[in-house]
């Protein structure tokens, strides 16, 4: 790792892997770590030792990423594992998500925070059901970039025709599913072609290697095109506990900016009260700031003494989102027990937890036909549309436009389990599923 030279301004890219089981994901991740020199000698020794014990010839790089004992015993990846590597140009966090059907919830988890999804397909097999499902998940979760690695290109004799055919198929599927930006690269994870270094075996491909592509992807959203959204996490009022007497009367609102830019003097509205005031100062432990932007963690002080609590949202006065108790949402259902209409749940939206009841389960998404099938339950791994009624109003915005303030999770009030990833609005329509038009399906 030559990462000591990583400049202070270098950015961090969050990746999530996806793909069907056996398409070569573990091998690819192992290869990325190995070729970017992020695997250290003792880790490699352990992998070589285990590979030998299993009677393999070389080191099985997939072992680098298969962490838990059960996985080692069964030879499968069962849970999201996080990997870290850096090049001289950028730092990466990689959420390695297992490919079994029953673990789609892991893909949802990994994709929720990802700047890019790396989706593997086996060049021999092409697009499988699970590939489409993962494309749909990436699209629904509005992951800004999807990079499809057409793997095992060595097993189709480095065929330019096969790659072109698959690339066209991927583009068509991505367009159907509304994937924001799609990139394709022919690779062999096993041999290393086009993973870190460009390969001589694919002279017909003149694009970047997978790693080069990832190094150059733009990261984050354009905060200047957004309006301030600041969910309050904690109210800071040290009073008598202040370590510095000058802060006895301090009152600040601490949180992480979800969207937009804020400056002292900006006019803001506090939701749900609707009270208007001005930003007096933006505080940090390192001193006040002249401006702050998403996703910085800061503390805002306001000109007026308004009653503000955790769960409130401070927003730009010139773009105040509507408050609503009735939410149409897309759910990725992650619970073992099915969801039914009438069920009571908790909804965590930004920093607020509210009670809710499921008014209606409208239907679930059929990924093969890419349209909504009417139905009244959602089972584990289903993605569907529901109507929720919340116990108190929240500034829920369309997820398609607001990846932070449009997201929520559904929690079981009885046992505290996380039941679903929720996206406000008709994310299915936003993802342009062909059969999913209002005419087909009136809500």
């Amino acid at each position, binding site marked *: 790792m030559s990462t000591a030279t990583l400049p202070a301004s270098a*950015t961090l890219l969050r990746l999530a892997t996806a793909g069907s089981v056996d398409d070569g994901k573990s091998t690819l991740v192992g290869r990325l770590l190995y070729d970017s020199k992020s695997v250290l000698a003792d880790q490699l020794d352990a992998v070589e030792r285990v590979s030998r014990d299993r009677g393999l010839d070389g080191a099985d790089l997939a072992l680098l990423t298969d962490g838990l004992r059960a996985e080692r015993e069964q030879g499968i990846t069962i849970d999201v594992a996080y990997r870290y590597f850096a090049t001289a140009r950028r730092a990466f966090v990689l959420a390695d998500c297992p490919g079994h059907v029953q673990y789609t919830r892991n893909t949802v988890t990994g994709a929720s925070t990802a700047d890019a999804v790396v989706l593997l397909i086996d060049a021999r097999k092409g697009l499988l059901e699970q590939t489409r499902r993962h494309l749909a998940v990436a699209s629904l979760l509005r992951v800004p970039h999807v990079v499809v690695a057409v793997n095992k290109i060595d097993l189709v004799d480095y065929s330019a025709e096969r790659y072109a055919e698959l690339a066209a198929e991927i583009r068509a599927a991505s367009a159907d599913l509304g994937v924001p930006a799609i990139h394709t690269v022919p690779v062999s994870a096993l041999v290393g072609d086009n993973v870190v270094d460009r390969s001589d075996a694919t002279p017909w491909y003149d694009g970047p290697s997978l790693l080069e592509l990832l190094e150059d992807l733009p990261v*984050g959203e354009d905060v200047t095109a957004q309006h301030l959204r600041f969910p309050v996490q904690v109210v*800071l009022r040290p009073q008598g506990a202040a370590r510095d007497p000058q802060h006895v009367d301090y009152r600040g609102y601490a949180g992480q900016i979800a969207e937009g830019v804020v400056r002292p003097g900006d006019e803001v509205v506090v939701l749900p009260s609707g009270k208007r005031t001005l930003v007096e100062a933006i505080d*940090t432990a390192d001193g006040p700031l002249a401006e702050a932007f998403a996703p910085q*963690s800061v503390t805002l002080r306001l000109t007026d003494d308004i009653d503000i609590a955790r769960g409130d949202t401070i927003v730009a006065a010139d773009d105040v989102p509507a408050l609503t108790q009735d939410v149409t949402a897309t759910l990725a259902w992650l619970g073992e027990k099915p969801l039914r209409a009438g069920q009571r749940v908790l909804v965590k939206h930004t920093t607020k937890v509210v009670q809710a009841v499921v008014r209606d389960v409208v239907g679930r998404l059929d990924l093969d036909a890419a349209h909504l099938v009417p139905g009244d339950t959602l089972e584990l791994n289903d993605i569907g549309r529901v109507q929720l009624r919340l116990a108190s109003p929240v500034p829920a915005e369309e997820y398609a436009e607001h990846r932070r303030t449009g997201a929520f999770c559904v929690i079981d009030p009885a046992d505290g389990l996380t039941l679903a990833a929720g996206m406000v609005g008709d994310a299915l329509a936003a993802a342009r599923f062909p059969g999913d038009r209002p005419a087909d399906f009136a809500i």
Partner: protein
Amino acid sequence: MTTTTDAPAVQAAPYTLSHLDLLESEAIHIIREVVAEFERPALLFSGGKDSVVMLHLAAKAFWPAPVPFPVVHVDTGHNFPEVLAYRDAEVERLGLRLVVASVQDYLDDGRLQERADGTRNPLQTQPLLDAISGGRFDAVFGGGRRDEEKARAKERVLSLRDEFGQWDPRNQRPELWNLYNGRHRPGEHVRAFPLSNWTELDVWRYIERENIALPGLYYAHEREVFDRDGMLLAVGPYSAPRTDAEAASVRTEVVRYRTVGDMSCTGAVSSDATTVADVIAEVATTRITERGATRADDRISEAAMEDRKKEGYF
């Protein structure tokens, strides 16, 4: 990286946070969420660099208010004296309440037995869990990083522990966006890991940027050491040579520690890194992981860490 070293770093566009700023913001967000949603949080503080960085972040998260929770130290009785002195000075400086869970007390009254190999790290679990239930702590901040070890790579930022303090790796809650679900039943608690996404190098870069003081043994110094199992152990009251070969290897070397733990099983590395910048350069070119180099207890088996975590270890 051979292919890209001459290429420029991807420059942050205006209004893009650098990777350290992003990690800092994420950690502060996590710390504030836990404090807002739990009744009695506490922070595990050993004086080791990760816990020091975590405490620094906590102080920033609540400024100008004080850190709103106590710190817990599991004292194996085999600690480096300079680390204990550092711990006490930090507690004093930040006006914290310190809860000490003492492994020695457990050995003295027979609740725990000394192990044949003399290692006390595995003995920390019981005192830790007792301190958590005794303090009725419902959330405990730990400095664990996912880059440390394979089992940790799957740990959630908020990780539920049952009433016995156990971790069930097969039954973890999905963690979506930055919406952390801290619901738990009475008797259960949650471990919170604000540094989940940091690497060893990130921690050091942050220590440099923020000018954070650490116990001196993180930097190169002379020390009397001997060889055991391919590690350099300090000659001290809790770690003396046991065999002739070990005794024959005793010598003074310039070393530093990459992790700070129990003297009896934490190895030093040969190093002449006397400043943070030296350490960063060294860490960036090292070929051995932090734990592989310095922790005897993780070498017990392939799955040593996973087994201890399931039982409620840090």
